[in-house]
């Protein structure tokens, strides 16, 4: 077991790579009641074309299968794992994103037992035709719930505008039609390919003794047979740099219109320190441009083009990335135009001062400190960072290195009209 000290933050992180390849991290947090653990596989909705374990040929699996698998892993021959967690005073959950599937629990007692339950249920699949069929009704309702949610439709509508081929454009839960093709055999094939320990990361944060916890995980893993797995082969089609569709308008049962402007990212092959620097620079840039203290925000709010739902965000993962900005608006077209103008202005000139940059960086440092109060944030973000070869605790030093020059270069490069796209939700009557 290795450990790393972060003096300024007064945190200590413990790490061990198990002999089967599983990465385990422990961050003790004194004074907290709760222990929070996530067990995550680097497998999400975008991994839909791959060579299954032990086979030669690429296969394409039904949309929504990673998420379906996440649901089904909770069910065992002797019942539901939720029941076992709650008997042990824990609350359990899971989520599927574009690139990850995470299983988690939090508990304030019986932590070791709960941790074993977590590891064991994820490492012991039990799928039958009958339980797979039953789940289709439940997930069907999850899908229709999102169909009625205008913000979700707006978000996915914009991704579908930006991407022509990449599976990031596919809704994470799939459609009622696509999940109808899911069978137990498909689930096992995905499971065996992506749930090998070497493709997974376990993170535990809370008032724990790191040595005892690491021993427990080591012993647990030693009892299970895993043969070494070759590297997983995933396939993604070529994706053009420009946005696939410039505009899409969705008519829905709403009273307030919504506009979201997207920018398709460049350099989506980045990882490690390069990716970290790039995404932090992008975040600082968006703060400078659209943050509540910015001239643009004051103008947009003052003119009544935006309200408090206005937000912006940047996402970048292996193979795809996008910035999004927008929210509810009384004038969906005018907001779209104004946002594009603001971006084009930022591209052309050195829009910001040293003082503004310093303030924006201070703000990010403060929000990082706030975030590390949260065990959920630490575990989930750390895992995402690790899967992209980045280090969570490099955030502050990397922020401190960002210069006005970095911002100007990024703006010049990434802002380009052919990578813009707009999605709107408009009342249907």
């Amino acid at each position: 077991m290795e450990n790393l000290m972060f003096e300024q933050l007064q945190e200590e992180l413990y790490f061990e790579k198990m002999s089967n390849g599983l990465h385990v991290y422990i961050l003790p947090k004194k004074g907290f009641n709760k222990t929070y653990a996530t067990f995550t596989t680097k497998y999400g909705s975008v991994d839909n074309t791959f060579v299954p374990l032990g086979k030669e040929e690429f296969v394409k699996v039904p949309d929504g299968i990673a998420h379906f698998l996440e649901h089904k892993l909770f069910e065992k021959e002797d019942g539901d794992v939720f029941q076992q967690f709650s008997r042990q005073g824990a609350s359990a959950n899971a989520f599927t994103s574009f690139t990850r599937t995470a299983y988690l629990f939090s508990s304030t007692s019986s932590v070791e037992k709960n941790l074993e339950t977590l590891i064991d249920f994820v490492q012991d699949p039990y799928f039958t035709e009958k339980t797979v069929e039953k789940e289709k009704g439940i997930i069907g309702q999850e899908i229709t719930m999102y169909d009625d949610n205008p913000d979700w439709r707006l978000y996915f509508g914009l991704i579908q505008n930006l991407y022509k081929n990449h599976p990031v454009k596919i809704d994470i839960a799939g459609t009622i039609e696509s999940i109808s093709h899911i069978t137990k055999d498909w689930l096992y094939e995905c499971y065996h390919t992506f749930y090998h320990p070497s493709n997974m990361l376990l993170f535990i944060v809370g008032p724990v003794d790191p040595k005892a916890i690491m021993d427990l995980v080591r012993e647990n893993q030693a009892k299970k047979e895993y043969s070494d797995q070759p590297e997983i082969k995933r396939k993604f089609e070529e994706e053009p740099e420009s946005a696939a569709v410039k505009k899409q308008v969705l008519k829905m049962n709403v009273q307030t219109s919504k506009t979201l402007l997207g920018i398709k990212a460049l350099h989506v092959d980045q990882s490690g320190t390069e990716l970290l620097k790039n995404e932090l620079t992008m975040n600082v840039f968006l703060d400078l441009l659209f943050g509540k203290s910015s001239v643009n925000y004051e103008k947009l709010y003052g003119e009544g083009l935006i309200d408090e739902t206005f937000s912006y965000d940047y996402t970048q993962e292996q193979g795809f990335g996008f910035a999004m900005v927008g929210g509810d608006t009384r004038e969906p077209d005018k907001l779209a135009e104004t946002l594009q103008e603001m971006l084009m202005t930022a591209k052309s000139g050195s829009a910001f001062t040293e003082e503004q940059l310093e303030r924006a960086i201070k703000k990010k440092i403060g929000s990082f400190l706030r975030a590390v109060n949260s065990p959920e944030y630490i575990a989930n973000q750390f895992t995402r960072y690790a899967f992209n070869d980045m280090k969570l605790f490099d955030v502050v030093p990397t922020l401190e290195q960002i210069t006005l020059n970095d911002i100007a270069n990024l703006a010049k490069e990434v802002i380009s009209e052919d990578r813009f796209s707009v999605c709107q939700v408009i009342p249907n009557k």
Partner: protein
Amino acid sequence: MESMAEKVIEMQGYKLHLIETDKYKTNTIVWKMKAPLSKGDVTKRALLPHVLQSSSNKYPTMASLRSYLDELYGATLYVDLAKKGEYQVISFSIEVANEKFLSDQTPLLKKAFELMSEILTNPHINNNAFDRETVEKEKRTLKQRIQSVFDDKMRYSNMRLVEEMCKGENYALEVNGVLEDVDPITPENLYDYFLKAFSEDEMDLYVVGDVKEAEVQEFASELLHFESRSVKNIEIANVDNNREVKNIKETQDVKQGKLNIGYRTHIVYGDSDYNALQVFNGIFGGFSHSKLFINVREKASLAYYAASRLESHKGLMMVMSGIDLKNFDQAVRIINEQMEAMKNGDFTDNELEQTKAVIQNQMLETIDTARGMVEVLYHNVVSGHDIKFDNWLNGMQKATKEEIIEVAKKIDLDTIYFLTGTEAVK
């Protein structure tokens, strides 16, 4: 178990609640103001905190105020409105980094106190009226905020249930106010309301973090002082217990139906059987091992979510589920069966113990966040009780099967609301 040591100090016009802990990297200051819900004031009260937090005398524009927050290492300032029983509670929160984790040693806690004082007591005004432009902007946003409920069907159907169920009671008022009452608000009458609220509301200040009592007390007495007042408490409204169950169906263009069912529990926080009610709710529908989840979702595959929750200061319980339009009758039948099972004591010791363990876990997790601590402690202010957190936990653990059955028998079904789609068969 890490509990909370709350120290309460009487200040000028308010109470200071201090929770010293070194587990966070930030310090949190929350200012709460409580007044009875009333049709006449609810909308002004919904607007007021948004006007106060958008500018002040010293920081007259949003950009200048927000720049200052960024300067304080991204201190967050936000306001929140909540309905606690028949009270409307306004909260102002500032969370600021603890400088011991920074290389820069600016005294951030003091600056945060100064800012809170600036926001609350030194607003941007001219001639006994708020800044006209700010009020206009915030009125526009408030209207959008009120309307936005319509676009979130889960919130909308819950709001409609409460509206129907509590017709004629102040509890039916929405926390963000009434759309038609926004326009008549002026910079002048809002300023009058501001003076009234700060002279009549019950006010509490919470400070959570690695702070020193003497220092906090000094900042508070220097920067925040108001006239003393007597607190206005309200009688809990009488409800007609013998009314027939209300059935409401509403049609909109939606794919998924939203089923919301309201019950009267006749039990509020602080009552002797509140603990048993809390456990009742956990067995019935609070968690993923509960009867609703198991029977509506896992066994019948009717829904993705099916849960119940308590309105602790009003004596209500709400069930919510998203179902296919055609499954309304079946879902209602299954939910009714679960309620009958509870009344008949048809739940095992295992379910009882499991539920207590999960509630205990949930409560302990809540006090791991500064915000959660404040909310837990504020129950005592709203209810006028002084229940220590540890006693609450112990009380919950002691609830017996017999007490839970007694609670179940008290619970009355009040209203069944269904938001259904245009494609529904009936």
